[in-house]
């Protein structure tokens, strides 16, 4: 089976996988990673692990690539007259919620039922004063499944998760839009790296990890890094692309570059080595700044057990944490290729060069 | 004096009949009964306007439309709650301030009073906070339901020279139009008296009536505000200083030929009159003006205090003056 990027990415963008409830996305990743690795397993927190054994003699060094697969979303807090009240899982700006198409994963019966639904705003006159104008606080928003109230009571219970249902769509200029491109763009890049490596000789063991529960605090990455205890880790996540309303923060041109992070989570020697590889293969790699640590899995991986050196890559993305995130396919390919080249070239004694001056 | 007594009797009958916009059937039949002996023909058009013709166009005459609206502001029930309280929306411009404590009469005869929810300190009441209590104890017990219409209920009050009632806007004008309709004789003009509907919700009756009548000149008769009450609106119209000849309001600019026609007639009769520039409001004149290819139109106004409250006040002499001015205008060839 030949790996094809776009169909795989689209199928990942078409399923849910709210933090803590990653089974749907894990099921999409599983057959693809099984094909590209020697062994796969699921961690105690639901992260998905795939190992490719290296060609070096044992005990071989090992590198971990971490890309989180979980998604931000919503959760049912109450049921009233057939409408659902909601809270959020991960960081969602309430202003993007009204009118969003969602899927309610109802678990009131033995089997989970997926109910298409939408987030709605009650009219002002049904709300207290702070709901009269301006953005509606999340507590006033409702979810409508279109079902009669009795049917809702039969299928849904408090605590059920609600995922975004926006379908992935290809836009102009080799870009793609959808929910959860944060961070399935990086899972796709990791898969590209595995695909390259499957056709090459590499000395190191490579363990790709699709981590769980990143959006609620790096929970999956903590356990996986402790368990695997790699010699070093590559963390790949999305970063902020230039776009409307971006403000004056340092932002990156989508489609023109990927990023490497410079900050407290990032080992300077790994940074330098990765940068050198990018230069050698003429892959544009801009510097992203995270002086006090980025809000990524790197934060937790770095401090697992006795500590793990980390290097962080980023794929620029517009409209982060909305259901219409946009990334460039080119950037995904660049990130996959860079990781593959970096790992292919790793000598068995590479860690000797990962030092503090 | 006898003429004035007739006018007051007609007016009293008119103001005590309910007829909010869209529910003009009772008031229309009363007017029909009042005028049928005095006109050449009459009919009710598709929207419910009562249209009565007097005279046949002769040498020097014109087809004239005179419009006085028969509808009044009122309320329509939107919901009756579990405890029998009826929520409502306004028909036309109703102020919540004049509602509180008011009494209403439904078209089906049910009576009620208007109550208000608890208001916070300095909170402005709005109609959504008001309700009608018809004495019902529950929704099932209520004699009114969604869509039922009521007008304000206040008896006619004769204060001597001044008269007070709900719906002086525009029944005072209806009385004036009826007065002129009866008085005008042997006219070269073909006069269509239009007792129009749905004026308070946007001159709707006059729009279609004007199209149907296809007049050569139009006169609306309506009430206008005054500037003669303590710290009131600044406006050069007072009660008792005679008919007001409208120059403009926010709905239209009266045709100068019509204004001039009215002024000359008032001067000729030696009637007191006042020029009116109203910075709000609209009248059927605007609807007549815009019909088909356009019609010269103006408005004869009756000065009126406290418009759109349940106690609108007009002056007897102003009313009588309006009848005489209108009769004079309609009875002779029109020179433009």
């Amino acid at each position, binding site marked *: 089976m030949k790996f094809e990027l776009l169909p795989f990415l689209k199928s990942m963008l078409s399923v849910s996988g709210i933090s803590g409830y990653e089974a749907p996305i894990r099921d999409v990743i599983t057959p693809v990673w099984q094909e590209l690795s020697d062994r796969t397993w699921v961690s105690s927190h639901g992260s998905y692990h795939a190992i490719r054994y290296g060609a070096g003699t044992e005990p071989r060094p090992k590198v971990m690539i971490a890309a989180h697969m979980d998604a931000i979303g919503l959760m049912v807090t109450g049921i009233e007259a057939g*409408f659902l009240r909601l809270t959020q899982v991960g*960081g*969602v700006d309430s*202003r*993007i919620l*009204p*009118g*969003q*198409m969602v899927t309610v994963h109802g678990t009131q019966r033995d089997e989970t039922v997926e109910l298409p639904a939408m987030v*709605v705003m*009650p*009219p002002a*006159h*049904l709300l207290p004063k702070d*709901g009269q104008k*301006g*953005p509606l606080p999340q507590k*006033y928003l409702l979810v*409508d499944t*279109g*079902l*009669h109230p009795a049917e809702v009571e039969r299928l849904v219970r408090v605590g059920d998760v609600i995922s975004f249902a926006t379908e992935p769509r*290809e*836009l*102009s*200029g080799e*870009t793609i839009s959808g929910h959860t491109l944060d961070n399935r763009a990086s899972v796709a890049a990791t898969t590209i790296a595995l695909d390259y490596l499957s056709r090459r000789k590499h000395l190191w063991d490579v363990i790709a990890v699709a981590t769980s529960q990143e959006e609620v605090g790096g929970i999956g990455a903590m356990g996986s890094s402790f368990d695997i205890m790699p010699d070093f880790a590559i963390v790949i996540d999305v970063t*902020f692309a*230039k*776009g*409307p*309303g971006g*403000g004056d923060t340092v932002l990156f041109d989508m489609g023109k570059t990927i990023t490497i992070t410079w900050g407290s989570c990032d080992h300077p020697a790994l940074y330098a080595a990765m940068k050198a590889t990018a230069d050698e293969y003429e892959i544009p790699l801009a510097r992203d700044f995270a002086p006090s640590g980025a809000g990524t899995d790197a934060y937790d991986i770095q401090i697992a057990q006795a500590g793990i050196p980390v290097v962080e890559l980023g794929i620029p993305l*517009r*409209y*982060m*944490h*909305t259901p*219409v995130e*946009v990334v460039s396919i080119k950037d995904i390919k660049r990130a996959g290729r860079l990781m593959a080249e970096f790992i292919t070239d790793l000598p068995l004694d590479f860690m000797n060069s990962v030092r503090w001056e | 004096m006898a003429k004035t007594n007739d006018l007051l009797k007609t007016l009293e009958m008119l103001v005590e009949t309910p007829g909010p916009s*869209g529910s003009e*059937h009772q008031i229309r039949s009363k007017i029909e009964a009042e005028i049928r002996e005095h006109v050449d023909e009459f009919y009710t*058009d*598709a*929207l*419910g306007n009562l249209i009565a013709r007097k005279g046949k166009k002769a040498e020097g005459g014109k087809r004239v439309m005179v419009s006085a609206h028969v509808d009044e502001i009122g309320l*329509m*029930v*939107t919901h009756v709650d*579990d405890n029998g309280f009826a*929520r409502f*929306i306004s028909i036309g411009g109703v102020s919540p301030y004049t509602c509180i404590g008011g009494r209403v009469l439904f078209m089906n005869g049910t009576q009620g009073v208007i109550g208000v929810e608890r208001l916070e300190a300095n909170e402005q009441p709005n109609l*959504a906070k008001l309700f009608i209590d018809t004495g019902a104890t529950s929704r099932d017990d209520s004699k009114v339901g*969604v*869509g039922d219409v009521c007008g304000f209920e206040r008896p006619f009050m004769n204060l001597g020279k001044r008269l007070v009632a709900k719906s002086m806007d525009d029944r005072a004008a209806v009385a004036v139009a009826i007065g002129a309709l009866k008085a005008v004789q042997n006219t070269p003009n073909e006069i269509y008296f239009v007792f129009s509907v*749905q004026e308070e919700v946007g001159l*709707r009756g006059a729009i*279609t*009536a004007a*199209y149907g009548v296809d007049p050569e000149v139009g006169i609306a008769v309506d009430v206008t505000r005054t500037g003669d009450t303590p710290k009131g609106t600044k406006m050069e119209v007072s009660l008792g200083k005679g008919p007001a000849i409208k120059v403009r309001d926010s709905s239209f600019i009266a045709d100068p030929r019509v204004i001039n026609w009215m002024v000359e007639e008032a001067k000729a009769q030696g009637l007191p009159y006042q020029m009116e520039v109203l910075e709000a409001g609209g009248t059927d004149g605007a609807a007549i003006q815009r019909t088909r290819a356009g019609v010269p139109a103006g408005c004869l106004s009756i000065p009126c205090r406290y418009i759109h409250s349940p106690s609108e006040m007009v002056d007897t002499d102003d009313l009588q003056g309006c009848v005489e001015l209108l009769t004079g205008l309609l009875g002779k060839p029109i020179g433009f």
Partner: protein
Amino acid sequence: MAKKYSPKMGKKELDLLTRLSNALAVSGDEQEVREIVYAELQEFKDSMHTDAMGNVLVSREGNEPIRPRVMVAAHMDEIGMMLIKEDGDGLFEFVVIGGVDPRQLVGKPVIVGRKHVPGVIGAKAIHLTTKEEREQELKVKSLRIDVGLGGSKLVEIGDRATFDTKLAVLGPSLRGKALDDRLGVFNLIELLKNAPENIDLLAAFTVQEELGLRGAKTAAYHFTSDIGIAMDSTPANDMPHFDGEENTTHNTKLDGGPAIYLMDGATIGDRRLVKWLTDTADAEKIPWQYRQPGRGGTDAGAIHKTRAGVPSVSVSVPQRYLHSAAGLVRIDDELNTLKLMHAALSRLDRSILNPQEIK
């Protein structure tokens, strides 16, 4: 006697409604819906024309000797957006057309132009916003339609855009964009195909309703009908009150059946026609509800004031969340609306317009 007609939402009907709902026909450019209407109504092609405004007007004559002329209007247009300025990089500034709550725009997929080029309206990442910012409404002026890098080759300023929402069946409900008023368009097509013989059915598929009932004005002038009926969709604000109080201002409720208008901001429904509709519904055992008297308006607002006046009324399918990315209606409410309209037209007799009938 009129032939028996019982509307259903089968595969064929759902397919038509899907095409209507998914079409892009923002006020001022209703061509896509016009094409569907023409294609569906080929059998009437000799009595169908497009007027100066773009309204599609169809006269379908009955065959009884005395037939009231009944104009039935449904508007083809929908709310939407227009691209007005290119920022480069596939980003476009836009303005809204019709009553769009800016809060409904953020984070939505859209389609642009006749080619339905996909785009999105994004928002700044929550990570880059402050708490104060998140409490401010995002103004339309600050939003952009993003069609992807280099997208300027596919779309241009002046193109109209709408939400990219596909019609979906949600149990007993339909969820889709522009159901206001494509349901009316669908119903009017069905009424024409199953028209009763006792009337002349004057069907107006109108334009620019959302910009102030502008298409219906010229359509009604053309038809000079005895009666006017607007078939539209009206809000169902039947959600729970946050504080648990009785919701007294629901406008209409889903599952309540067709909504018959007594009064809105543009029309006071003709009492004789209101009674004709409610009597029909009761006789046919069709559930119905009054739309709570209130603001807003339908094409009836333009029709009833046409020429010397046309007694008019409106009937709407109750719908939640109008003018957003998707509305939600009950299939039963939709079918009952069509059923009521057909039954009422079939029993229509001109005598209901006698002035004596006004109570």
